[in-house]
């Protein structure tokens, strides 16, 4: 009840902006670590413009509202980050907050805190109470559904290894005179920690694939205005979704459409083009395009074959790393002589199915889509799970470092125990006497 918590407070992915709320004692200090300004030095109850930065990378341009407790929703120090909508950016910021020390709020937790801290009036008590009970039941169900099968089994296995290890260490500590029990040495610990490190790393690797399965691949179409991006989009989608015209700069909003490629959804984003412009509305569109390019898994650079390559096209090709881009030479049905001999390109036009087919095959090859069997990847599937496993990996690495420095087994055990507890919370299988039960079950001790 004293942790600093955070959660996305707006409906995900639909609005133009998303709000992430952070509440608790450390909310100012945690957000300050990733915001371009120090919140503790800013005036209370203000909205501040700046950037979310993490590991030297600008994640998003945001507005940050700061509300010092008790004059806030929860009566605690509250920070609200208004970021640009879209699942990827919002999730990224949430993930960073979790890494930096926040805990993901449970359903209704902000309201609960508001109540506990006396913010809501007494007549609201019962309502909150019911909400809490209902929500946590619902959350429990969702949680159980999300975590069935392979992941739970996997984590149970890891926990069993950990609890055996911990009990053995505890036995060594609590019954030191019993030398005929296996004594856990640093060498044994190192072996266990290294395989633990592998387990967590591969869980996180799997998470990426899971994400492909669940969220799909974000494909961004870029190119100078009127290069035929929207037509290509429509050809891919087989429907008239984007506004297609011959006037430069008519696509102002990112239009999303999805196609299903080998069972994986391809989220195709058409951009407004990245031409320098004085038109205010169009400017916003251009900014959004830049953003979309940053967040995409794959970028299709569309070049009008009939018009020849411009410096703008060249700049795009240079900007996007080769493994992340496909160059599509569009409009090969019109006259034009452009040949890009230095790069691998796909040539085609939106009137003819052949070029489009080659393009789709290229995407399948890039992501090995023909090899993904979606049944295999029932692993980590939400940000909280991923974050817990990341923490476990960090703790494992930390323990290995301490091991190298010849730290005492008692210290190393603190990390191992934390991992065991975190995993227990993740699968909701932890009880008070678990360790002692295991200890007495497996070791023979006593007077």
């Amino acid at each position, binding site marked *: *009840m*004293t*942790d600093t918590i955070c959660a996305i407070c707006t409906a995900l992915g639909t609005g133009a902006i998303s709000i992430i709320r952070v509440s608790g004692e450390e909310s100012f200090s945690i957000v300050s670590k990733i915001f371009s300004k120090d919140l503790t030095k800013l005036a209370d109850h203000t909205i501040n413009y700046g950037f979310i930065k993490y590991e030297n990378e600008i994640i998003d341009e945001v507005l940050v509202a700061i509300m010092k407790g008790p004059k806030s929703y929860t009566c605690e120090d509250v920070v609200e980050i208004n970021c640009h909508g879209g699942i990827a950016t919002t999730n990224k910021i949430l993930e960073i907050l979790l890494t930096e020390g926040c805990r993901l709020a449970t359903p209704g937790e902000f309201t*609960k805190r508001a*109540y*506990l801290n*006396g913010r809501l009036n*007494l007549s609201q*008590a*019962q309502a*909150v*109470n*019911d909400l*809490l*009970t209902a929500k*946590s039941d619902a959350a429990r169900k969702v949680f159980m559904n999300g975590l069935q099968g392979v992941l739970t089994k996997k984590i149970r296995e890891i926990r069993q290894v950990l609890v055996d290890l911990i009990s053995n260490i*505890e036995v*060594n*500590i*609590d*019954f*030191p*005179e*019993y*030398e*005929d029990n296996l004594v856990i040495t640093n060498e044994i610990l190192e072996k266990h920690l290294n395989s633990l490190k592998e387990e967590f790393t591969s869980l996180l690797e799997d998470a990426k694939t899971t994400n492909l399965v669940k969220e799909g691949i974000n494909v961004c179409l870029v190119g100078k205005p009127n290069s035929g991006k929207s037509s290509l989009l429509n050809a891919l989608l087989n429907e008239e979704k984007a506004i297609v015209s011959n006037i430069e700069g008519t696509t102002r909003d990112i239009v999303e459409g999805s196609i299903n490629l080998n069972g994986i959804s391809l989220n195709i984003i058409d951009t407004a083009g990245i031409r320098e412009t004085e038109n205010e509305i169009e400017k916003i569109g251009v900014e959004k395009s830049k953003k979309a390019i940053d967040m995409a898994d794959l970028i299709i650079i569309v070049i009008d074959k009939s018009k020849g390559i411009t410096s703008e096209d060249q700049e795009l090709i240079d900007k996007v790393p080769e493994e992340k881009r496909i160059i599509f030479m569009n409009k090969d049905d019109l006259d034009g002589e452009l040949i890009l001999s230095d790069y691998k390109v796909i040539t085609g036009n939106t009137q003819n199915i052949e070029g489009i087919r080659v393009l789709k095959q290229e995407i399948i090859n890039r992501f090995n889509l023909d090899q993904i069997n979606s049944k295999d990847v029932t692993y980590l599937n939400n940000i909280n799970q991923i974050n817990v496993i990341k923490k476990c990996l960090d703790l494992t690495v930390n323990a290995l470092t301490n091991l190298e*420095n*010849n*730290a*005492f*087994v*008692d*210290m190393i055990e*603190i990390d191992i125990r934390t991992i065991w507890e975190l995993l227990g919370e993740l699968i909701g299988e932890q*009880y*008070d*006497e678990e*360790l*002692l039960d295991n*200890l*007495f079950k497996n070791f*023979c*001790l*006593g*007077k």
Partner: protein
Amino acid sequence: MYDIIVVGAGHAGCEAAYIASFMGKKTALITINKANLADMPCNPSIGGTAKGIIVREIDALGGLMGKVADKSHFQIKMLNDSKGPAVRSLRAQADKKVYPSEMLKELEKLSNLDIIENTVEDLIVEDKKVTGVVLANNEILTSKIVILTTGTYLKANILIGDTNTPGGPHGEKRSNHLSDNLEKLGFTIQRLKTGTPPRIKESSINFSVMQEEHGSLKPYTFSFENEVYYDIDRQEKCYLIYTNENTHQIINENLDKSSMYGGFVSGVGPRYCPSIEDKIVRFKDKERHQLFLEPESKYYDEWYLQGFSTSMPKDVQEKMVHSLPGLENAIITKYAYAIEYDAIDPLQLTPSLETKVIENLFTAGQINGTSGYEEAAAQGLMAGINAFLKLNNQEPLILRRDEAYIGVLIDDLVTKGTKEPYRMLTSRAEFRLILRHDNADLRLTPHAHKVKSISAKAYQRYENKINLINEFKEFLQTNSLNIKENKEKLEELCQIEFTKNIKLIDALKRPEITLDILNQIIDLTKYTSVFEEVEIEIKYEGYINKAYKEKDKLIKLEKKTIPKDLNYDLIKNLSSESRQKLKQVNPLTLGQASRISGVNPVDISILAIYLKKEYAHEN
């Protein structure tokens, strides 16, 4: 009329009676037999893992166990030296004759303490308040407070094979009526079991085939008074042997004759103290089990065979013992036995160890379901202190889980209860990095000073230590290691090459460097007495800070109090299991409530919200 009557003079009773009279209350200590005061009916040792830390905590709070143990052991060891600072703990082989007599000497120094030989058969209770006790001869003694420290004597049965003899350890009389009367008063009584191994005549043991076990070669004391009474070089030895195939065969063939396996015992025994037959049945694949021979006393011709607790009949015990190396011709002086006894359900206690059923009645030790001399002594001490505080209308002294093993012990008992004799283990303490043997005085002296359970001298010693630690830390912070001058010495001592001068405190953070090494380069002898504390705090700062952060969280929840008269039936939405558990435990704080097994976090939130709503005006 006494202020306080303590019933039973085992380890809990002695500490309770001592501290109550030391603090100024007129106290009576009633025992069945004065000769068995502070008796050690089982293992001849004090301390051990976690338990050694408890002894130091007892000492810091003003109790006697540490001081008396220092005067009466013939071997002492620092356990787990190589496993980490948080789990180091002292264990001494205490002399079973000297310990009780030293304890009696201490108690006899107190002018306001009467030691009375008698049996208590009933309590006098008026209006749910205890006002005295009824003795075996129907004599009545009155008092404001009664502390029950009856150990294993309540309706005790001694079990050897299929024989079942009413009586306590040493064939003493048991207390026949007290537990029935407690039940009538409303207490829930549970039946527990423990056991003890055989004793062997010294002159019949062939030690030459056994492996020797020695004490530590550094002087150690439990007490922070730090007076060394023993000769380090002349410590007694213990011995290690193993069971063999033959032993296992004898046991397997006779299982049906054991009290436990023959179905003659109803009590629940502790998992950490299985009998040898238990070990052999449960761990079939193990070819041998470790056993230790420990001397009982310099004055007795008797050794304790640790690890060989059994409830087999006497003739089988003979065969079992004779199958062991060096014990082929052993004479058993006391046969192993199991003992069954009554205890109360500790959920009926408040954290001050006063019962919820009867006011002014406190209980401590095995009657509360614990096992072990140290666990008993710790509770006795706390019951004594809290009885004193209650008489003076002061707040009770309740140690938190982050402050002391004693806090963990009592919190576990009154919050979770126990179904087997409860033994302290380091794994029970989530804050063990803070709860170390070296800082027990730093953790607890302020409490002891506040309630005046220690002398002015002890407090002065604490203040001096704090000052020395601060001065030392300041010294390490402000002074640097001159690399040029000490290059060779450093390379020789720890194989490190530094490139530039480094602050002492930063040097110490390096894994290769210890204060003992630095002391050979810069004179730090002034601070050697606090080396351990300071080195641990600096070297393990990261882990320790993490622990302090957790501690802060705990404290916040502990500060949210729950009214004693809260009616849990009025709180809607509580799960029925949680409601029942909360009613049973009646926790004092939200922190305590959150530790009750079976009460889930949602119910804690609901409880918190209800408290806010109903008691908002009080906060």
